């Protein structure tokens, strides 16, 4: 096993442990912090797989913007620590059986594919090459995604604004 392989297994272990801790914490702030650790590990994996621009974007967008947004919302709302849902045996038995069948089939498919056993070579897509490729072949998709982000912005603004208006009306009604 080369150095890169060892780095991959270490990062994978750290990510899995951090995510497992994140999804089981009762306190939401703790799980957000564990999730930031997990996303930092994912960014390093992106770099290991030869995508330095995506690694930077992962830290900026996921670990930065999205997690800070979650933190703001958690601080804004009064969130009581929530327990895990406890389904009965009759509820989770079919789901568990079907999930186990999927896991078995997935392991079978992945391990019997002869091409998946070859060790990956390291490669690096420089940001300049990546950006040129993106805007030469997928410029229309970039425009569509920018439109989607604009719509999301308008939707979030509308949802925030609509309540203020109705809340004011309710107050007037009460008085």
């Amino acid at each position, binding site marked *: 096993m080369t150095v890169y*392989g060892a780095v*991959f*297994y270490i990062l*994978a272990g750290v*990510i*899995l442990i951090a*995510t497992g801790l994140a*999804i089981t914490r009762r306190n*939401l702030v703790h*799980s*957000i912090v564990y999730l930031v650790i*997990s*996303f930092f590990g*994912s960014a390093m*994996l*992106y770099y*290991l*797989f030869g*995508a330095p621009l*995506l690694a930077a*974007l*992962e830290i900026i*967008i*996921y670990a930065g913007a999205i997690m800070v*947004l*979650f933190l703001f*919302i*958690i601080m*804004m709302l009064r*969130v*009581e620590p*929530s*327990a*895990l*849902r406890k389904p009965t045996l009759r509820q989770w038995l079919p789901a568990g059986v079907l999930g186990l069948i999927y896991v078995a089939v*997935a*392991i079978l498919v*992945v*391990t019997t*594919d002869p*091409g*998946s*056993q070859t*060790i*990956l*070579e390291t490669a690096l*897509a420089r940001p300049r*090459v*990546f950006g040129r490729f*993106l805007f030469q072949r997928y410029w229309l998709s970039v425009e569509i*995604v920018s439109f989607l*982000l604009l719509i*999301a*912005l308008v*939707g*979030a603004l509308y*949802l*925030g604004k*609509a*309540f203020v208006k109705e809340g004011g009306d309710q107050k007037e009604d009460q008085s």
Partner: protein
Amino acid sequence: MIVPYSHILMFAGILFAMGIFCAVARRNLIMMLIGVEIMLNAAGLAFVAAALRWQQLEGQVFVLFIFAIAAAEVSVGLALIVYAYRRTGSLDPETYNILRW
């Protein structure tokens, strides 16, 4: 020389399953949204590994689009959660069982 592609797929699959567990088993709207984020991240990891395996840049391009989708989904989802919280005063999805104002 890194690792076989199958190991990366297994790792992404485990991460995706963790996201599903978080989205299904937690009694909190914010944790359900976080579960969706974990799933998107796992899909992105699989895409980048596939881009490395076949030496094609398309995989990385699609990860960029996944980032944009995740950002849009989180902004609208959190706005919806804040709206619903102000209406009902709770983040437990089991309290949202009335389909009227």
